């Protein structure tokens, strides 16, 4: 149903953001531990990247019906 679609989208979004955040965090942690001497910025960076990606994806998902895809036609 069309009324359930938003719900699904939100679900996906949340799941995605959780995953991304977690992945970002994880990677940040990893990077910070491995490469950046336990500094906090990779974690923040990673989580930020994660959240950002999640946000972007979420937005894209929500915008999807309204996005116009054009084709480049060479004349």
């Amino acid at each position, binding site marked *: *149903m*069309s*009324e359930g*679609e*938003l719900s699904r989208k939100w679900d996906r979004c949340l799941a995605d953001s959780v995953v991304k955040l977690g992945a970002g965090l994880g990677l940040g942690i990893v990077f910070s531990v491995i490469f950046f001497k336990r500094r906090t910025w990779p974690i923040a960076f990673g989580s930020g990247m994660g959240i950002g990606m999640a*946000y972007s994806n979420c937005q894209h998902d*929500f915008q999807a*019906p*309204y996005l116009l895809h054009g084709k480049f036609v060479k004349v």
Partner: protein
Amino acid sequence: MFRVYSAAGRIVSQKCLCGKVSLRPLQPCYRYSTAGNPGASAGKIVGTGFLLIGGGIGGTFLYAKWDPKFRESVEKSVPYSDKVFEATLGPAPYAVSLPKKPISSAAEVVNQKPAQTKRKEKPESSVPLAAPTAEPSLEVASAEAAHIISAASEVPSIPAPGTHDGNGESEGEQKSATRPALSAALEEELGSAAHVTLQAIASQEAAVSAINSHSQKLKEAMEDSEVTPEQKSAQWGALEDALKQRSKAVDEAADALLKAKDTLEKLRSFIDGAKNIKAAGAKSHILVAEENLNRMLIDLDNVVKKVQAAQSEAKIVAQYHELVAVAKEQFQKELDSITPDVHPSWKGLKLSDLAGKLSTDDLNSLIAHAHRRIDQLIKQLAIQRAREQQHVETAVEQQKQENKKMLDMAVSKALDHYHSEINLEQEKKVEEIREVMEAEMRTQLRRQAAAHTDHLRDVLKVQEIELKVEAEQEFSHKLAELETHYRRMTQEQIDNFTLDMNAAYARLKGMEQAVENHAIAEEKARKAHQLWLSIEALSCILKLASGDSPTEPLDGAVEAIKSSCADNEFTQTLTSAFPEDSLKQGVYSEAALRARFYNIRKLARRVALIDETRNSLYQYFLSYLQSLLLLEPQQLKPPAQLSSGELDTFKLLAYATYCIEHGDLELAAKFLNQLKGEPRRVAQDWLNEARLTLETKQVINILSAYANAVGLGTTQVE
């Protein structure tokens, strides 16, 4: 998979082969079982064929033997069958009758009487009679007889062609009764006359021969004086016999001549009588008969002449004999007077015989007498010589006279004969010319008759045509009258009949119509009932929607409707107007839709701000915030008229809620249809479902209304 298939194929083919192999043993058996029969049946067929052919041929032969016409037709149709028939059955029976035809062409001759077949026997018998009697007579006589024979044979020559015809032409007799009788009598007379004449001629010939022989013998007896006395006496005896014979023959000849003359006279009179009767075809017979008569007369006359000549010669000889006898008697008398005692036997003896029986006296007296006699005779001779000339002249005169008489007689006879011949010829010519003329006249008459008949025919034809035309006119007139009358009557009848028929037909039609209408009405009622039932079923299905799940697919019920009213266009169109989804998936009930609506409302409020331009997450947050903060009454009564400017999501949703609360799904759907952007997207499914349901409901309503109407229409108010 492929292997399985190939194996299966092999198995199948093997089965087929086995099947074929199993079939083969049967086939030879079948062949063997049938092989025995063809031989026997072929022999039977051949045998029956031969039997039939032989029977056909035998039957043909037998029937041809019995029926000559069939034989003729077979001979005509099958080429060499006539030879086969001749070989087996003998010559065809119809071939014998052919000689009749060419003979019948002799028209004049055809009418010969079959009585002539009897008559011809007489001349024929006279011919063989004449033939043997002619042979012993002299050549001339036989030539004369030949005349008679030819004359007589001409008589049968005419009936000869008719001998064969006599069998078939007996019906021609009755036509000319006088002619056959006449000709028959003619023939009879001719025959008898010829017969008699021949007899007379024969007797005349006999007489001539007898006379000649007699005179010859007499001459011999007179002249020959050196024969012995016995021979002399034998001669004299023979002479007497000859004399007797001559007299007899002469008498006979005379009798026969008389008879012949009588018969010829009778014939002549008969011919004259026949001439007077003037029968047409008998003229030729009459002419022929006359000819024969003349010839017979001529022959008779010739023979009589001969007889007379012979007689005259005999007379001369007789005279001579008389003279000699007289002289002898005289001498004897003188001798007697001289020698009175002469033997009576001397008269019969010659002088030389007496030489040894007389005495010297007698001898002397005899010699003296003889001398005296010689002197006398010398004197007589002298006188005779003196008177010789006179005697000769008188004799010549006598002879001349006699000759003249004979000549006259002969000339007259010849003239008579000639006259008669000329007459005959003339008559013949006249006959011929008459016949020719008659034939010509006949042809002319025939031509005239033909012309007359042609003219008559033409006139008759013209008359016929005229009469025909008249009759045709009258007939057609009468016919037209009768026809019109008849037509009128029939027309009246037809009209009456048509009226009755029309009336009956109209009634019948009315009845039929009533019955049909009744049947139609009943049918309609039944159909309407059926339709109504099916529609009721459909609407029941709608009512059976439980909770949020859709109903059963409607296509079964729709099919039932379709089948129940297959001929109704209205219903058909309606049933085809059902949306596909309702048929396949069923529709949601109103309650379900109502329930869903509230959900939709909530969602739509939350995303009221999202549309094409605003669709980021932030906007989502904002619209959510808006929905939380904005307070609108849940239900707003929609106004009677709407203006598109003031419609926004919340208002629309309020209107729709109001409508839903009041059961107006349609209006709610209409309001929801005005949503834009994301709320619209959210409500899309609900809208579709609502649309389906509304459509289905509409169709069902129409159908039920229709069914009700039809049911009402067909219900008969009793």
